[in-house]
């Protein structure tokens, strides 16, 4: 068994210019260059991308679902952030 395993990388692909990079999946690679090449070979075989980002998974900091209450629920009642909160007469058609 190998002493050291290839680390895990997360792959983000831009499908076409104008769109954002989207998380496509992950893979293993020994270094960044290999991660990029592997991502090209694994995730864009069917013409899925025009740009790739790879980042080693350990560099991603994720929020903890048990904090979801304090992190995300406070935003739920701030309805004034949405346009539908404001009432306008029908004559003002597009605003």
């Amino acid at each position: 068994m190998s002493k050291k395993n290839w680390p895990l990388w997360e792959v983000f692909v831009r499908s076409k210019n104008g769109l954002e990079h989207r998380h496509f999946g992950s893979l293993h690679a020994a270094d960044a260059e290999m991660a990029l090449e592997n991502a090209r070979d694994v995730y864009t075989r069917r013409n899925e991308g025009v740009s790739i980002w790879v980042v080693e998974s350990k560099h991603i900091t994720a929020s903890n679902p048990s904090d979801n209450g304090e992190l995300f629920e406070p935003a739920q009642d701030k309805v004034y952030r949405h346009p539908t909160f404001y009432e306008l007469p029908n004559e003002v058609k597009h605003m």
Partner: protein
Amino acid sequence: MKEKEVKNLEEIFEARIARDEKIEPKDWMPEKYRQTHIRQISQHAHSEIVGMLPEGNWITRAPSLRRKAALLAKVQDEAGHGLYLYSACETLGISRDELYEQLHSGKAKYSSIFNYPTVTWADMGAIGWLVDGAAIINQVPLCNTSFGPYARAMVRVCKEESFHQRQGYEIMLTLCNGTEEQKEMAQDALNRWWWPSLMMLGPTDAESVHTEQSMKWKLKRKTNDELRQQFIDQTVPQADILGLSIPDPDLKWNEETGHYDFGEIDWDEFWQVVKGHGPCNKERLQARVDAWENGEWVRDAAVAYAEKQEKKTIKEAV
């Protein structure tokens, strides 16, 4: 955590799944859910990469360049699907190397169909048509399974897999429209792959230990027997189009049920192969172990090189 608290969490968890909410890797989940998913997803991943071997046999011998390219692309997809599935499994806190270890030691299972030999070119047709056909029936419902990473992997797999079955059926069709010798080759392949394909959909409901729990977690939407019936009903007319006969004297259309009746499956054979005594179990496992062991020096070298490069970069920065 107190027992009562866990029970409470479990109830909330089951309610989420019942509401069709997805579970993501960092969410709390019962240990049994985690273990069941590791087992099923890894088993699925192992099946993909062991499944590369019987078809890989014929890449060098494909009869035309067009067929060679299609087969290569198909076997490559299987590697890709294995990769997606291992990745999904890794989000549950187990590494790909640990999963390989389970496969190589014989602890983990993979689909027993891949323990049958591919002896003629027609087997490439039969595998695509029947084995991929059965796999699709199994896999499509999994695109909606409760565990997010598994569901997303399956969406990708199903999308890519759509050419696999067509590829196989086209091979069969070409053979059946060919010479007498070719047609015989196709019939022979159907004769050998038909029963193992039916077995591939799993033991009968009475014998299946995981069905009820799996249904609740949406790891399964239909029982093995329902899937098998669906497979038979859709495959028999396809065999008719080919002009091939299904090797089952008891097979006949049942007007009342609206399904085909079929003969007894040899479950002794199934369990024998599952337990490691099929025609190619040893060879398949050995091929995987060899690939892994022969690749060790390569993987180690790549890590050593990456470490050297990193040191160099740090030195240059200082």
